[in-house]
């Protein structure tokens, strides 16, 4: 059987394309996406994964083929052909990555814009200005993700102030006065997080929402997102903040609207009854020990003890 080599190349090309397209959609590497924006990021990733798989197979294929086909046979002491270059081919493979990154850049720009990254926002009152304004006119430039253009996100968002301290997140709901160590939000309502840090750098990360923003002491930052799946998701600190950085975790619970109201009520009552804030925190339903940590100084508990408590809890 003698198949012409250009047909073999064509078949290899088709297989490579099909495998890339399939793998780009079925890599199964990402956790569930709990918002529309997250789905968009996933599509971007799938697109990049498709291209990357194609290039990976192409280059590795060339390498494996070369190692098998072009290895030196015993007794062969001649040199290879003196090919020093091929200008059209070089232009071709300069153009390919150029086109790819051009498309990628535009696509990423679109996704980022949709996520609200270019929203010059902060027209909302973000509370008392801290020491640093973003520029001298006092006009704030967006840090983090704002309102998605052409969306309803700007309307009636749930505002939550997030404060990162070693080693916990404190969530304050200005509307209801609830203070909590866990984030609770209703489904399908935009949430605007105003993020700040009390001591060192932290980073607020919601893996299932594909969003992250550093909490920077002295600066305000913001994340806006609209959850569309009910469930409980991790909230992770992603910027090294000290020894127990790994333990700085809590959870985000996305409720139905009714359940959320219930949660707010429970916690408002608990707060009203409580004589002091720290006790109020303890009466919330949180089972996480981490958020005790900030009060460790008050309660005179070693951070280490809290961490150990945490491990004991996991077993």
């Amino acid at each position, binding site marked *: 059987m003698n198949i012409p080599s250009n047909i073999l190349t064509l078949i290899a090309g088709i297989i490579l394309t099909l495998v890339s397209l399939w793998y780009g959609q079925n890599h199964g590497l990402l956790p569930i996406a709990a918002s529309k924006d997250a789905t968009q990021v996933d599509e971007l990733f799938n697109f990049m994964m498709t291209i990357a798989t194609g290039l990976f197979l192409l280059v590795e294929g060339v390498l494996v083929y070369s190692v098998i086909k072009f290895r030196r046979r015993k007794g062969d002491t001649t040199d290879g052909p003196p090919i020093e270059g091929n200008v059209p081919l070089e232009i071709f493979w300069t153009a390919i990555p150029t086109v790819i990154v051009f498309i990628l850049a535009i696509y990423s720009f679109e996704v980022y814009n949709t996520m609200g990254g270019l929203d010059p926002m902060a027209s909302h009152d973000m509370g008392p200005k801290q020491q*640093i*304004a*973003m*520029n*001298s006119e*006092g006009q704030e430039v967006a840090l983090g993700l704002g309102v998605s253009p052409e969306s309803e996100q700007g309307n009636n968002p749930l505002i939550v102030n997030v404060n990162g301290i070693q080693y916990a997140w404190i969530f304050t709901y200005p509307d209801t006065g609830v203070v909590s160590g866990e984030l609770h939000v209703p489904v399908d309502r935009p949430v605007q997080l105003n993020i700040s840090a009390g001591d060192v750098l932290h980073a607020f990360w919601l893996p299932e929402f594909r969003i992250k923003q550093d909490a920077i002491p002295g600066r305000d930052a913001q994340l806006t997102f609209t959850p569309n799946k009910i469930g409980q998701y991790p909230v992770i600190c992603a910027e090294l903040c000290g020894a127990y950085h790994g333990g700085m975790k809590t959870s985000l619970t996305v409720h139905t609207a009714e359940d959320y109201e219930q949660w707010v009520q429970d916690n408002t009552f608990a707060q009203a009854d409580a004589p002091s804030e720290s006790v109020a925190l303890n009466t919330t339903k949180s089972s996480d020990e981490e958020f005790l940590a900030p009060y460790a100084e008050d309660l005179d508990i070693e951070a280490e003890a809290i961490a150990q408590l945490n491990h004991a809890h996991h077993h």
Partner: protein
Amino acid sequence: MQSSTLDESKVALNYHQAIETAHHGHPDHRMFGVFLFLISDSMTFLGFFAAFLIYRSIMPAWPPEGTPELELLVPIINTAILVSSSFVMHKGQAALKKDDVSGLQFWFGLTALMGIAFLLGQGYEYFHAEFGLTTNLFTSCFFAVTGFHGLHVTVGVLLILSVLWRSRQEGKYSSTSHFGVEAAEIYWHFVDVIWLVLFVLVYLIN
């Protein structure tokens, strides 16, 4: 990077020991090295200046409220001294081009004195400042930037003095053998230019 400054200056100082041997038909690459070093060193200052400019642009008030006014008289005199010293120094090099070693010594000696005067002026300014290193961000920047520059001036003065010391030796420097002289001079001009940028940034555009 202070340590690199010092090392390079030492190397530069000692280069001319080998200068005679370097003339046996072999090209002398040391000036090229000095240029590379100065490019690198200027990046250190660029780092400081960039930080200064970023602070200036992001802070609501710059200098922060309550910063005492900078006294301008001494720095202006200092600027005049430093800028004119560059010309004085160049006359020294011009004298050497005519194999006039005593001219070199005179003009370089004068340059060294002017450099020392500059340092004394800066010392006076530090001593009489109404603020300290940690008063606020601006004053910290002020001391860091001027201090780092002052360190460079000190190194420059030491370079000039060592050229003077070596020039006592007969035939050490001549119109054909003058690497040490040139290196010291180019370094001094560099320090001078940095000062002008610094003066505008720190003193003028508040």
